């Protein structure tokens, strides 16, 4: 039964609930409804059942985008975390001013606007006169078309992504490292453990919850990848994904269908397919973690 003593509490959470309902729940519900309609945002919508979902799933761009996404996640998440972990170890090995200095330097790409970061990297990747190709030329190596060769484009994107995200993950991992009791390391050293053994037998196991967080966060972010490939390929709503769609990802495809073709029903359906994938992957990760914790 409803207890009157909860009224003040409910009143206190009401502003949040109202805003949450208007700006979060309503768009989700209306988006879900529109995913069953043929709708261009201005004219009368037409119910089409599951046609939007069928059209998306059977489209060649969807297959390509999902393939790219899978390849991207498999590489970028572990590489990104490994780089962040190494940076955290490096920063942790310094003390005082130098620790703050390197932490700030490595964190800088995180605060850089993505547009600026992509512009810098487009210049770095420029054939012949870009930083990387000038360096290669210095060693007598031929110029590489990093953003136009389908065999290098994904790795070029991953390099930028790792560069941008490593600082954030490093700060989280570093905070986790600071919470590991120092006596574990002292005991290990007394037992003759090497630095590598300390990392594998103390640091990594003790960081398990932190690594789980950065992995989950990394996977969810990677599933929604959009701005970096969009900017690196100079995409627009009418043309996106780069050479042979080598950098086409689901959110780009969704945006193109919505704002490029005014197929907002399809875009909404795409959003729900993607949401389902994200929720499923996250649920599986949490389930695996729970299973791993059970005796």
């Amino acid at each position, binding site marked *: 039964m409803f207890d009157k003593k909860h009224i003040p509490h409910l009143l206190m959470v009401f502003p949040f609930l109202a805003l949450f309902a208007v700006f979060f729940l309503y768009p989700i519900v209306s988006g879900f409804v529109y995913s069953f309609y043929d709708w*261009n*945002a*201005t*004219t009368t919508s037409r119910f089409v059942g599951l046609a939007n979902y069928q059209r998306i799933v059977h*489209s060649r*761009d969807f297959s390509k985008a999902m393939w790219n996404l899978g390849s991207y996640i498999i590489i970028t998440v572990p590489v990104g975390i490994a780089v962040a972990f190494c940076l955290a170890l490096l920063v942790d090995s310094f003390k005082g001013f130098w620790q703050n200095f390197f932490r700030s330097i490595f964190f800088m790409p995180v605060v850089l606007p993505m547009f600026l970061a992509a*512009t810098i990297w*487009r*210049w770095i990747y*420029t*054939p*012949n*006169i*870009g930083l990387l190709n000038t360096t290669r030329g210095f060693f007598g190596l031929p110029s590489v*078309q990093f*953003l*136009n*060769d*389908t065999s290098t484009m994904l790795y070029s994107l991953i390099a930028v992504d790792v560069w941008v995200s490593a600082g954030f993950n490093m700060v989280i991992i570093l905070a986790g490292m600071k919470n590991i009791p120092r006596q574990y390391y002292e005991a290990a050293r007394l037992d003759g453990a090497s630095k590598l053994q300390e990392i594998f037998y103390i640091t990594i196991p003790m960081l398990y919850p932190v690594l789980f967080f950065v992995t989950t966060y990394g996977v969810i972010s990677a599933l929604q990848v959009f701005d970096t490939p969009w900017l690196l390929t*100079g995409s*627009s*709503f*009418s*043309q996106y*994904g780069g*050479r*042979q*769609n080598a950098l086409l990802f689901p959110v780009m495809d969704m945006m*193109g*269908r919505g*704002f*490029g*073709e*005014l197929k907002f029903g399809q875009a909404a359906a795409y959003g729900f397919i993607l949401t389902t994938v994200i929720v499923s992957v996250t649920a599986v990760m949490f389930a695996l973690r729970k299973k791993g914790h059970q005796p």
Partner: protein
Amino acid sequence: MISTRYMHAACALALATAATISGARAQEPVTLEYWVYSDFAQGEALKLQQAFIEEFRKTHPNVTINISGKGDDDLTTGQVTGAASGNLPDVFMNGVNVGATLVEAGVLKNIYAEFMAMPKEYRQSFDPALIAMCSPKPETMYCLPYTGYGSFMFRNLTVLKDAGVDAAAPIKDWADWLSQMEKVKASGKYAVPDQTQAWQSIVDTYSGVATPDEWGADFETKKTKVNEAKYAQTLQMFVDMQPYTSGTSRNDQATKDLFISNQLAFHLVGPWVNPTYAEAAKTSGLKYDYVLVPGKAEGDYGGIKGYEFIGVAPNKNAQVAFEFAAYVTAKEQMLRWAKLLSRYNASAAAMADPSVASDPLIAITNKAAANAIDGMPPYFKGAYPNCYRSILTDNAQTVADGGVTPQDGAKELVEELNECLAGG
């Protein structure tokens, strides 16, 4: 021939009449939101746009006009979402390539009645083909044509000289052009940007062998008009060009950087790049010129053309918004606009004026537009699905990379474009 002064007076009279007809409402304070391309909202272009606004306000003191610059995607997105939310800008620019999309979204008012109410001199000041472009069916007109372009080819004279190419001799045909590319590559430089990366570049090349009626789509039959045999020749050209390309698209900043730093011989693009190259000529000694895009056979030329337009939203300010659009597109303003930017525009009367006809950039754009193929015709009739453009680029890239032969590629292209148009 009626003098400019008479034409101006007639325009002013028509606008004044329209304003009077508007009655008491005309005296109410009105604020127009005016969206323009971002490069028209900065520097000298912005000053001239603001001058147009101030001049218009002398006859319409109750009207305030807020000008905002937007990127290409922002213009379209803002107009579509504005139509959905009932918050459209009153008068705005956009490109004809998205015209059909805007019509579908209800962004554009049919201004046929307003246009026909204007003096004959005003109506006849436009290129008739462009008025036809804005009028997809009888008694329907969705835009006032504004600026336009025909693509041509910038040539880096230093790169050509270093490669032993005589830039004074015109490029005869594709074979001659390829031999120049080979020499450029042999000298350690790039010849052209990757012509398969942007659909506009593909049209640039295809138009060197095809006629205007062999491009675009028939939205009634849902079939592409691409000529398979001629497209196979274009694909063969992409295969032949592939070893000489820079790997950058015509729109990349890197392409301009390569050209300015004497690493790239040819850049096929529109006249908007010229200010960058002119500045580089002053500051870093860049030596360049521009010529028409070579065609497959001697005497044929390639190139793509496109137009920007001014549209009016179907809202309560539509009448005064049209009056402002008509003021901006009158010959006198179009002439000032062309002189300032050295840019070709839709006013045939302004383009015929000796003061702009002699401008070399406008002259080459005029010639280029005469030879070029329209980007995504027919305009304002059917919206091209995104798959159309991605199929074009994917197909050209697959063939250029050696994935399939040009003949098979052209056959696949036609099939895939037809499937795409049919909604597959």
